[in-house]
């Protein structure tokens, strides 16, 4: 009985750990050319858990394949269920400029996992050029400016709403 439980837990662990094991980590500058066999896929892990990371990635393929940018949860759905959500999707050549925070997975898929998307007809050569860098001062300023503009608009909206709905006293009107 114990042996059965041990094998069961080992199997579950192996299934859950498999995406992480098969994924290639992208850190800093990364360039790779490879071949994906028919009905297969490759996974790249991009660790953007530290805030302020920017990912620039360009993937080109010799034949139509599916590119998915997935979160950890979406990757599990991709691996183990028919339906899955994704952050971004494209075929052939794709370029991402990504600023999310968290763990992301870039999947280059040469398998027919969904009804729509590229059909797999044979091995596909692909090239991935990726750059994971810290957010520059310009981007930080742009983000700060965006927050500042939004904050100012909210304050103006609140002040105007207060002005609009406040009834002036008759003495003020008759001045």
């Amino acid at each position, binding site marked *: 009985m114990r042996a059965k439980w041990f094998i069961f837990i080992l199997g579950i662990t192996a299934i859950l750990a498999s995406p992480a094991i098969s994924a290639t980590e992208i850190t800093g500058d990364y360039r790779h050319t490879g071949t994906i066999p028919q009905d297969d896929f490759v996974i790249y892990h991009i660790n953007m858990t530290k805030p302020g990371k920017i990912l620039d990635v360009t993937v080109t393929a010799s034949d139509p394949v599916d590119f998915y940018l997935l979160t950890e949860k979406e990757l599990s759905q991709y691996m183990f269920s028919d339906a899955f959500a994704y952050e971004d999707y494209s075929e052939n050549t794709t370029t991402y400029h990504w600023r999310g925070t968290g763990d992301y997975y870039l999947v280059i898929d040469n398998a027919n996992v969904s009804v729509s998307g590229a059909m797999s007809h044979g091995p596909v050569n692909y090239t991935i050029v990726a750059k994971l860098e810290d957010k520059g001062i310009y981007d930080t300023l742009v983000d700060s400016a965006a927050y500042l503009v939004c904050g100012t608009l909210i304050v*103006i*909206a609140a002040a105007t*709403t207060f002005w*609009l709905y406040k009834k*002036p006293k*008759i003495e003020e*009107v*008759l001045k």
Partner: protein
Amino acid sequence: MIVFFGIKKKNFAYNAYTVMQCPKCGKETKHYLMLQKRAFTVFFIPLIPLGTRKYLVCEECRSVTKVSNFPPKDRVIISTGAERKD
């Protein structure tokens, strides 16, 4: 991207009135003061105040007359102090 914009108007009624001849019905009746505030809205949120306008509302026919100066110089203004509902 669709942007909804427009002008939001808010009316305030007062118990202050002047007695004058109504331009519409011609009767010599009370004309109550009404204040209208206007603001430019984006996505129904007021962002830019567009000023305040004063109107006189005829007690008989409810017609509205825009006035630039209130109280008018040649008219008597009576205000009970208690404010009317908007």
